[in-house]
């Protein structure tokens, strides 16, 4: 079985995958036991599976594991508390299934643009869907970090 090497949350990871096209999401969840990234659509349409690949937000449900090889993956489990704490302070969750993707999307934005405008935040999260309608609080949480 082919083996793929990459860094996950700062640690070296070596995983086997019978299919080089297996999306990274399943490797994270089922092989590495990292459950923060969620399966929402498998189509790259909803953002629930968002993780960082070398600091960029990617949809892990459509990123083949072979393309992650040699790169550095960050999941919410290893993200510094700054952004999650802002989400907690704003109580920016209902069911919370989209939250990990929101936090990771915000992390990618804030690393590039530390003080985005509200409009920039909205545009940046345009591909992250929230079905419970927690948009106002999520925006408030990201803006809380943006203004800090």
């Amino acid at each position: 079985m082919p083996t793929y090497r990459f860094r996950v949350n700062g640690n070296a990871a070596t995983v086997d995958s019978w299919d080089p096209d297996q999306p990274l999401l399943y490797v994270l969840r089922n092989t590495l036991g990292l459950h923060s990234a969620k399966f929402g659509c498998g189509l790259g349409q909803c953002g629930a599976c968002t993780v960082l690949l070398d600091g960029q937000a990617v949809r892990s449900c459509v990123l083949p594991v072979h393309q992650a090889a040699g790169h550095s993956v960050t999941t919410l489990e290893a993200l510094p508390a700054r952004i999650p704490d802002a989400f907690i302070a704003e109580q920016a969750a209902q069911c919370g299934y989209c939250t990990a993707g929101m936090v990771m999307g915000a992390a990618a934005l804030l690393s590039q643009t530390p003080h985005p405008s509200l409009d920039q935040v909205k545009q940046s999260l345009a591909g992250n869907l929230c079905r419970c309608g927690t948009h106002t609080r999520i925006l408030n949480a990201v803006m809380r970090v943006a203004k800090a």
Partner: protein
Amino acid sequence: MHAMTSLTRRGLLKSGGALMVSFALGAALPKRTIAQSAAAPDVDSFLAIHADGSVTIYTSKVDIGTGLATAFRQTAAEELGIPVERFNVIEGDTATTPNHGGTGGSSGIPRGAADIRRAAATARQALLDLGSKQLNRPAADLTISAGEVHPAADGKGIAVAALIGGKRFSLKVDPQAPLRDPAAYTVVGKPILRADVPAKCTGRHPYLQDLTVPGMLHGRVVRPASMGARLLSVDESSVRAIPGVRVVRVESFLGVVAKDEWAAIRAARELKATWSEWSGLPGSAGFERTLRESPVERDQVVVNRGDANAPKPLSATYYWPFQSHASLAPSCAVADCKESGTTVWSASQNPFGLRGNLAKVFGIPQEKIHVIYLDGSGSYGSNGNDDAAADALLLSRAAGQPVRMQWMREDEHGWDPKGPAQLLDIRGAIDAEGNITAWETQMWLPGGPQGDRALVGPESAGLAQGHGQNAGAMTLNTDPPYATANLRVVAHSLKDTPLRLSNLRAPGKIANVFAVEGFTDELAVAAGMDAAAFRRRLLADPRAIAVLDRALAMIEWQPRPSPNPKPAAGNLHVGRGIAYMRYKQAENYVAMAMEVAVDRATGKVTVRRVACAHDCGLIVNPDGLRNQVEGNIVQTLSRTLHEEVTFDRSRVTSVDWASYPVLTFPEAPAIEVALIDHPDQPSYGAGEAASAPVAAALANAIFDATGVRLRTVPFTPARVKAALA
């Protein structure tokens, strides 16, 4: 749930996130046997005070992200005088929780919390009696605070845990037990933070989707290309190259199981199967005509007052399409079907109902099925969770191993039971003063038999089951909340429905208020009156007037007739709208005002501001409530602007987020919510009410901006542009 949460969180932290984490939920809980008498429930069935002073609340009502569990903790903490942070909640476990109903109809607070409150009040009296014996003081001199029974005036107390910790109350819930005076509340009414939020924001909340049990396989179903097609043949060799795949076929039920999830997904995608042709659907294009022309099962006279034949020269027709729950997570379940007993982990909103239905459909004695609720993604009524449970059970029974079954996106959008389409004809009349002299609503909605909803998998597998088409209380709020002398409302339930029906948030009420409050606006326009003033003079209830006035003040409403005489220069036309309703004509009072901008060139509607005034009686948790109200507004804006389930003659064709778009962040409006608290009044649930006036307020605002009345949802740019042309 929270006891399990912390357990799992520890497990994850210990593993450093680098190992496969298995958690056997329920195993850490003490064995409980519970009295299942709904008429005379035991205090112990709802509450357990442990030796360490912590308290567990047991309930069949589940917190699907609404903050309900936090409200339960506050309610029990208030009655018991035990700090709220010592409470945790076990939800929806058919072996350990009492069955006081499923979760729905905004009943979590008015019924669920009320049950817990009475159990806690009974426990409080028992604790005061126990304390009285220990402290040698009359119970009347004692009170409970900070988890201690102590003299109200002075003197030493004793910890609640020392009196009852780890022991049972062995008492029936006393419906007459004295309740704490709301005026003295210290916990209820406070914005206590939700216990589930930190784990949700750090990726450590244990979802159903994350559950692993020993020996578990991953399952996927292969649905037919046409909804009613029969399976003719399967070519198992088509997936032979995928490792560890087993094909499961039961009649026309087709699925795969594999140890590896990706293998199951690929196998389900690549498995070659031949299906019969089927084209039994009417198609969604022109479905409003289908509704009007289809055979009616029964005509229900909802309201009939005064003269049914009073003249009604004004009329309009409103249409609401089929909509999907479109849960962010496709439905999921883990089932372990064994001879000795079956365990099902599910995010169903009604675990006891699911157990009963599975028992009937699979011919398993109810006592041999254990359903355990775990959080999934938000569901807004009955989505596909119960169907996924049946799929998992079918696969587990065939495979002889536990199976985790997660639907794919197209399964969820294509096969979840839907919120019904509705067609409403309204006729009415006004006099010169702006009084409504006559009103008639006629509504058509898909229907079918009463009883349990048919489950998708068992239907394909040829198992005998009910075919109930219940969608909730669809006919409420079909009458105006305004003084009307001559009023008649008739609901026509059809014999049939093209798609399975289910309760979808605020069932029926959103479309009904869309029509009723839209038509009220039309009457105001006919009267040449300001929309808010027209409504206000026909309202008598001070709580109704209070929310209306509050919403108007928030949006800085300027009285004038609609449409806006000066909408704008250029293509962007601005307007405002108002809608009011009392939910189910008996519960929450909600008024909603909106400011919109309509681009006449593109038809794009931008909601700039939403102002909502909300009165649900006593407020248990203002922050939880605000979160629910905001969610109701945003989700219903999405339903109004974007959402329509489309289907051709054979299948649902809106099967992903591209073909069934929902509201995105760039469209998120500024929302202002005013919560009006009435601590002396009963508490209504707020999971649905604020959704009901959204579509009406939006349509009324669009009319104000453009002079064009939209009576068909969704308000897509194409539809708006066509209406403006």
